[in-house]
């Protein structure tokens, strides 16, 4: 709907023949970030990540805990420096982009001062922007409160706000300087369902205004409802990148399940089916037997369904969308083997990301 239309408005960053993009909102190449653990071992949080986000895009970073989403966003925000590779934001060094007031962000762990009211908090943060000097500060603060839908909370102490309300205070703070890029790290984590809906409604308005939005989430529904493009991350790498629906079907697959005569028959059928599915070009992401039921998670449910119905005694076929939780478990266990085939072909930035995924 409205979101798709906005993509054209922001598509000013022209792609050259070589694939190099000028004026990219976010341009990460070979990004690597390591930390030292308490025992002195090197822990790799982000491991050679390539990500290109163009102006006006709305992109979801989807992945399980520990996938490197927060670390990646910290680098984009200049809060953390890369251990390797390069990071550019709006054509600038990330810290410079933030200093220029061009990036707004909602952090997962951004603390607030409990003794200030919501309105004072916004006026405080407005005063931190040299571009909002004098009377423009309070005006920008009031405007941000309205846009975040929390003008009614202006007089309330931050300590008396719920977790969801505090998150919307951070959202208002992110809007203060009218940024070109909005970065949100699991923005709805502390919200109930109603607050979550109100938050995304407010975000739709910001997207319609042409802002580039990058957000991390582990809710597939949020990626589906809001992002045209989803980047699936696991163990510090991009494992799938493309239109959200495509990433969903390819990376998460669908679950095809069918009943057989008894548990033994189910196990036999599974052994028989494996080579036949492989010959038909169906990628099997996961398998299980549940009593007499055989459960397959595959990328191509139609072909798989035809094959399993051919098995003698097979009945009661069910096809369901793959669950993100299952996919996360699998991705966490083994990020490379099961997803190597999921490179989407329709990805407009495939030149930039395909090599990474195929590795």
């Amino acid at each position, binding site marked *: 709907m409205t979101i798709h239309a906005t993509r054209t408005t922001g598509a000013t960053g022209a792609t050259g023949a070589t694939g190099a993009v000028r004026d990219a909102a976010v341009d990460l190449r070979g990004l690597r970030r390591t930390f030292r653990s308490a025992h002195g071992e090197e822990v790799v949080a982000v491991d050679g990540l390539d990500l290109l986000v163009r102006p006006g895009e709305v992109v979801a970073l989807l992945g399980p805990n520990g996938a490197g989403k927060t670390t990646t966003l910290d680098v984009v*925000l200049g*809060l953390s420096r890369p251990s390797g590779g390069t990071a550019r934001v709006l054509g600038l060094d990330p810290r410079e982009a933030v200093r220029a007031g061009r990036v707004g962000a909602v952090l997962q*762990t*951004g603390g607030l001062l409990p*003794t200030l009211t919501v309105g004072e908090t916004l*006026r*405080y943060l407005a*005063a931190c922007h040299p571009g909002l000097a004098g009377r423009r500060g309070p005006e920008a603060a009031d405007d941000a409160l309205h846009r975040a839908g929390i003008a009614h909370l202006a007089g309330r102490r931050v300590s008396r706000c719920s977790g969801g309300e505090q998150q919307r205070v*951070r959202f208002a703070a992110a809007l203060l300087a009218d940024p*070109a890029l909005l970065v949100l790290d699991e923005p709805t984590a502390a919200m109930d369902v109603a607050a979550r809906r109100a938050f995304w409604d407010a975000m739709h308005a910001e997207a319609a205004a042409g802002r580039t939005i990058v957000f991390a989430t582990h809710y597939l529904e949020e990626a589906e409802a809001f992002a045209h493009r989803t980047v699936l991350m696991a163990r510090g790498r991009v494992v799938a990148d493309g239109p959200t629906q495509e990433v969903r079907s390819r990376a998460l697959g669908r679950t095809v399940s069918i009943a057989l005569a008894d548990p033994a028959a189910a196990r036999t059928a599974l052994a028989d089916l494996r080579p036949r599915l492989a010959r038909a070009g169906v990628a099997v992401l996961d398998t299980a037997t549940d009593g007499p039921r055989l459960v397959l998670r595959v990328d191509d449910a139609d072909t798989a369904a035809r094959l399993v119905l051919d098995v003698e005694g097979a009945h009661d076929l069910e096809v369901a969308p793959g669950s993100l939780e299952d996919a996360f478990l699998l991705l966490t266990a083994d990020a490379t083997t099961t997803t190597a085939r999921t490179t989407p072909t329709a990805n407009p930035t495939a030149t930039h990301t395909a090599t990474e995924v195929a590795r």
Partner: protein
Amino acid sequence: MTALPAPAATAVPAPAPTGRVAPLSPTLLRLELLRLLRDPVTWIFSVGLPGFLYVMLGTSTEYADVSAGHGNLAMFVMIAMAAYGAVTATVGVGGRAALERTQGWGRQLGLTPLADLTWVGTKAATGVVLASLPVLLVYGLGLALGAEGTMGAWLGSLAVVLVGASLFSLLGLAIGLGFGTDQAVAATGGVVVVLGFLGNVFYPLSGVLLDIARFSPMYGYVGLARYPLTDGWTSMGAGPAFHDSLGLLIANVSVWTVLFGLVALLLVRRARSRQ
């Protein structure tokens, strides 16, 4: 709906920061003070306690009127209690500033173009304003309850107490950055009490203890604050009167300020490198 408003947000460039960095933001100073003054702990411990201690220690009829240089002993005690209150305030502001910087609020500020200089300047000003509350209370009590001295002793000591206290915000900053916990910053009140005893603030020292105390951080500061009153002489307590030269007191303050500053700087660097 396909008709969309013009993408104003990306078309209009964000306001660029002005070239010169302000060393102080009035809005931030006002809000920082508002935060502190809303906290009853500030009133009780930072402001009330030094006033209470002065009334307890400085108004005793037995010795308050004893002559001390250009005034009386009540003034001698008054200067010490004001200095204690001022240092408690600035160490606390410095310590909490360090915590804010390294905890969640620091990340929130890290998302703004706020310059380090503006932040440091605003925090330093916050410390001085906060320190002036117990100082003015104690001096007011002194004026009302019998402290006596020449105009030079009143104004000179007041200036040294206020200006010198700001140096101790560096100590608070170092403690906050070094330990990085709320408990450490809460414990700075105790640290100031210990430094106060070593600095000849609460109780007159003598002998070996005094020889050691001369090298402690608050000794030079309080000695300088009392200088307009006593010209460096101290004659309280059982021991004989002794004298500290102006040079020695200034050297004490200078060395400790440089030390606190260096430690704070090293800890700031360490915090930066972890990003």
